[in-house]
């Protein structure tokens, strides 16, 4: 992780402190929503690299295990790096469960595809 990556990740955690905690979902989503734009091949590779960095770093971040905040911080990390991804919200029943994750095309960035097949996407921010 470069020094610039570290600062951007710290900024994303800062965003979580000021733009996530005690905010309604609509406000969180509005803050994270950025106009979608097509991504070049090199940018897609950079997204994957940053997602891998995040996966290693998130263990040491003082974040709860909730998918909402973990995806929010990764999304803000990508956005602060001039990139982005689709923030997908899904639900399932029997038993009811709601989940969210980031996706680049059909690739899940912060979860395993096998875990996600049971969820029906109902909302995408991106």
């Amino acid at each position, binding site marked *: 992780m470069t020094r610039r990556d570290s600062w951007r990740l710290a900024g994303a955690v800062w965003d979580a402190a000021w733009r996530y905690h005690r905010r309604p979902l609509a406000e969180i989503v509005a803050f994270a929503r950025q106009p979608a734009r097509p991504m070049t091949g090199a940018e897609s590779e950079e997204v994957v690299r940053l997602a891998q960095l995040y*996966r*290693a770093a*998130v*263990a*040491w*971040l*003082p*974040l*709860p*295990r909730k998918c909402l905040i*973990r995806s929010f911080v990764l999304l803000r990390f990508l956005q602060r790096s001039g990139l982005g991804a689709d923030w997908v919200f899904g639900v*399932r*029943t*029997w*038993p*009811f469960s709601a989940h969210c994750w980031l996706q680049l095309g059909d690739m899940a960035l912060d979860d*395993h595809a*096998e*875990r996600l*097949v*049971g969820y029906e996407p109902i909302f995408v921010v991106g």
Partner: protein
Amino acid sequence: MHPPFFALTWPAETEDGCEPPAHLAGPLHAQGWTLATRRPGLALWQRPERPLVLEATRDLIVVGRWFGDRALLRDAACGDPEPVGRARSLCGGGWGAYLALIRGEGGWWGFRDPSGGVEALTWAARPYGVIASSLADLPPGFLPHRLALDWAVIAEQLRQPIAQMAQSALRGVCPIAPGDLQPIAGDAATATAIWRPRDFAPASAEVDPGWPERLAATVETVVDRLLAPYGRVVCEASGGLDSSVIKAAALRTGPAGRLAAALHYVGDRPEADERAWVRRLCEPHGLPVAFVPLATGPIDPDTDFAALARDARPPYAAVDPDRDRDTVRVLAEHGAQALVTGKGGDAAFFQMPSAAVLADLWQARGVAALRHPRHAEVAQWTRRSVWSLWREARRGPPSKPAFGMLGRLAGPSLEPASGQAPHRWLDGLDGLPPGKRLQIEALASSQLALGQHRRGAVADLVQPLLSQPVMELCLSIPSWELVRGGRDRGLAREAFASWLPAEIVHRRAKGNLTSHYARRTAASAAALRAHLLDGVLVDAGLLDRRATEAALRPDSLIWRADGIDLIGVAAVESWVRYWQTRAPDVPEAARPSLAP
């Protein structure tokens, strides 16, 4: 399940007291039992359609299969001729799926091997002692003379189903726990612990680079020895790691054609569909796969559980009766004598995501543990931060709910759990690190699969990952090494990597049947309501009527994952209904009165 048996003991003053009492032998023969063998003071019967595998000397009968140095079976070979010495010699010098009947000065004793491969229930029918695999199919008068229903044990089994392995709610019948030696007709208080999982916990934090190789070699040997007697075997194939390891071991070791088919249950939701994994495993070997859709229709407790409720324990191992019947059908179609499964792999190989492995690491390594990469790896695995794991590792896991599995369904007469260990393997674990305690609890829980079921009546159930050598080896490996790389069963993945396709070895998630069982419960809600709401458990105040009614509403079931627990409670209800008309209540543990 092992073939049924029934043994009678009586005081034999002389060496020629081998003849079983004629007035008892007659009714047994009339019921279809045939004499398998006899010794002074003991006679053993079997069912002719499923003959027993026996090895016998004058003072020892091994029912089932024991693998070890044959010389140890000779009466004179054991330095200590008393039952404790002989049981230790058998257990330390070999392994298998067996029950050893051992003659001592005071009479005959039973030693059940640590895998629990042969069921053993013992009781007194004065002046005789009995040890048998089941209470079913016995002539009138052969059950304990003072059989009684113990409601304190029923309550404990509702809170913690694992308790049924240690104690029957039928006072007068005593199950022998795996690893225990017990005098025939004696109760659990008279048992001697010969084998306990705690004895194999690692003594040091040293890492042995040979563990993966030893694990692969042990599983290969165990599968080879356990399956050797069978000409045709069906293998359960879920598409997950454990059953894949067993299937691969069976293909590596046995003669071609011994593995007749793989059996795979197909869920109807995308997350439960694992057919692609199973095809990937079986097609290269030309192994036919029986794909059986999981039944989605209603369960009828009256017909589905009643027939299995006549034994010493509720039929927990048959809570999916259609799956049980379908397995019987597939076994018959393939002419299989055994069903081999990967049951127990989650416990032996360590699949439990928990901060306890870090607590084990700290206890073993002290401050030096803080540099260990497992902290971040376990955090990734459990999707938690290292800080929250440290907090839990320091404080210990959250305390267990007072009403255990029954939780919100607890009725007014159900007392909170006493804190007493519900299984004999869980006694005396205080000195062990939390990760090892968790592993031992999981191994003990795996024994619930040993109970009554239909598939066990037509074929032997072989569970190599619960065998003594596999348990001993996995218990001797520190928990944080079992989850190498922050992966559940990490060391096992390393050990079996060369046996399996890479996709299976590196699979992150496993097909999930939670949804199937939640919907199955909803489909069965009408029958479960009729069975439970006016049932004996509600009447006794152990089950809360209003909470049960609410839990069975579809709009509740669609939210919750514990639907299968309601089916388990229905199995207990069926069991109590059967026995309450055949046995009175124990006076000091009678049916609790309803709270006002």
